């Protein structure tokens, strides 16, 4: 499913964090959102996911306009996200974090709890089976009964991705999924994201590591000063003088900026 935004603006006390960002995130592809610090990348992701409202502009998921819908409604349309600073549900166990994700749980209704306990129990068991399989895949099975706040930084990143996958997303927004994780884990996370693409998930990821962008992203959107500066493949953008000036600069020769 595709994601599209047109002319998104957002100002904080007169300062324009986003100033007319427009782009298409193509279906079933991995798209990178890059740009210098302060370009408005996280604000754009916050607006797209409903965590923030925009001052003007429009957002579409597929053909449906979802401009300024609240987070939970956008999530129910199939758009899931992770956060730059992990937002694990710290007091819940790792497994419980996963179990929060599925939509339409019978056990969220008091009527079902009191009068259809067997249905609730069975659905819980199914969800738990699926969650444990995912935890196994993401290397968190051994931590299933730990409180999520006890995980390491890298494990929290993995849990956030696994939790989003548990909700069967159609679109996944990843806010710097590789930030602060070791090279081996970067490779693993990259593998997970590629596999999600194979499964038909549309991915938009904010990423500063150009090696990662080069290896796994099909398409790149460059944001600068709150506007869309350029879009295309990374190899094309390396030839774009504006992009080089605004973001890539000397890192072209050095590979990854960090």
């Amino acid at each position, binding site marked *: 499913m595709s994601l599209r935004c047109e002319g998104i603006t957002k100002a904080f006390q007169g300062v324009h964090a986003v100033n007319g960002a427009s782009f298409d995130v193509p279906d079933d592809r991995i798209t990178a959102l890059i740009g210098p610090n302060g370009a408005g990348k996280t604000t754009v992701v916050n607006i797209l996911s*409903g965590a923030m409202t925009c001052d003007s502009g429009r957002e579409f998921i597929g053909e449906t306009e979802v401009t300024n819908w609240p987070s939970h409604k956008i999530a129910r349309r199939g758009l899931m996200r992770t956060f730059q600073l992990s937002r694990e549900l710290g007091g819940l166990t790792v497994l419980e974090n996963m179990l929060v994700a599925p939509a339409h749980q019978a056990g*969220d209704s008091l009527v079902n709890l009191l009068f259809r306990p067997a249905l609730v129990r069975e659905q819980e*068991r199914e969800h738990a089976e699926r969650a444990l*399989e995912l935890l196994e895949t993401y290397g968190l099975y051994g931590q299933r009964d730990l409180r999520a706040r006890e995980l390491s930084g890298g494990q929290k990143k993995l849990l956030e991705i696994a939790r989003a996958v548990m909700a069967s997303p159609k679109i996944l927004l990843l806010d710097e999924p590789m930030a602060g994780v070791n090279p081996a884990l970067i490779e693993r996370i990259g593998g997970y994201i590629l596999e999600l693409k194979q499964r038909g998930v549309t991915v938009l990821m904010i990423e500063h590591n150009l090696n990662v962008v080069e290896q796994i992203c099909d398409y790149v959107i460059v944001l600068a000063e709150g506007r869309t500066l350029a879009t295309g493949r990374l190899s094309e953008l390396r030839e774009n003088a504006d992009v080089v000036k605004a973001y890539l600069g000397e890192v072209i020769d050095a590979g990854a900026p960090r």
Partner: protein
Amino acid sequence: MVYYVFTLVFFLFDYFILAMGLNIQYGEAGILNFAYIGFVAIGAYFTGVFSLPNGAGTGQHYILGLGLPFPVNLLLGGLAAMCFAWIVALIALRRLRTDYLAIVLISLSLVLYDFCNNYVSLFNGADGLYNVPEPFAKALGLSVNSFIPFFACVTAVVSLLMWFVMSRVMRAPMGRTFRAIRDDEVAAAALGKDVFRMQLKSMLIGSFYAGIGGGLLIQFGGSFNPTAWLPGETFVVFAVLIVGGAGNNIGMFVGALFVETLLIHLPAFLPEIPGHPGLIEYFDNAVVGIVLMLVLWFRPQGVVPERLRRAASFGVRERQDGDPATDAAGLAAVHAAAGLRGGQ
């Protein structure tokens, strides 16, 4: 002696109910409801006016006066507290969170208190309601002395029923969603949880418990007036919750036993200090305050902390801890099982 013991038993189980109600709001969903005692009072007053006969000729002024039997009046009292919570939540909960919500709720508690204290036509003002019929007393031929043990037992049974229901709620996805919202509203919303709707549910369930707890209070004593629900009483229920351990129903029982029964009510039955009549009773709030500080300092999770729900309790098959699947086939299988459609 029997009177003393069963009075303590009554307060133990009644505060167990009240603490469970506050726990689902604060311990589970993170709503700092400083107006909790107001919902208890609404439950008590409505249970009273549903039970009392028509006000004319009783020397009291109150609304309704329907003369309904127990437990119909009690259930309606609980529902009245729930309706009040619904109105409050629609106004306050939709826009406000944490500290701001707490400030609005404590203000509400004060306004409600002054209103009930001064507006005589509603619940008989400062005199409050009295002569509320004792449940089953006539039918069973209970004397004043035998009514107290009887009603303490009724309260115990009601509290156990309510504990059963609450345990189901807390163990279920609903309780988990409450805790998710408590831990991080933004993350819960990003996972598709309607934060307002879920917090509203928690407010309604908790207020029903408050209303039932209040209803039992007026039925036990036969009277209820504003001195019984000074806004500061909310903090006694908070003390029960914090000492017992937020997020755990057994903790609520332990907290009720320790704070409400032993610290608040037992001193009233202790012998007086010669030359200082009534002095011991004045110390109850101070002692509760000191205990609260000690618990927060040395055991902030409470005497019986929140229990983690382990994977084994979901009835799933155990597997070996192993290396994460990194091969394409393993990943594909798991993602397919997660409901993601096939590659294109």
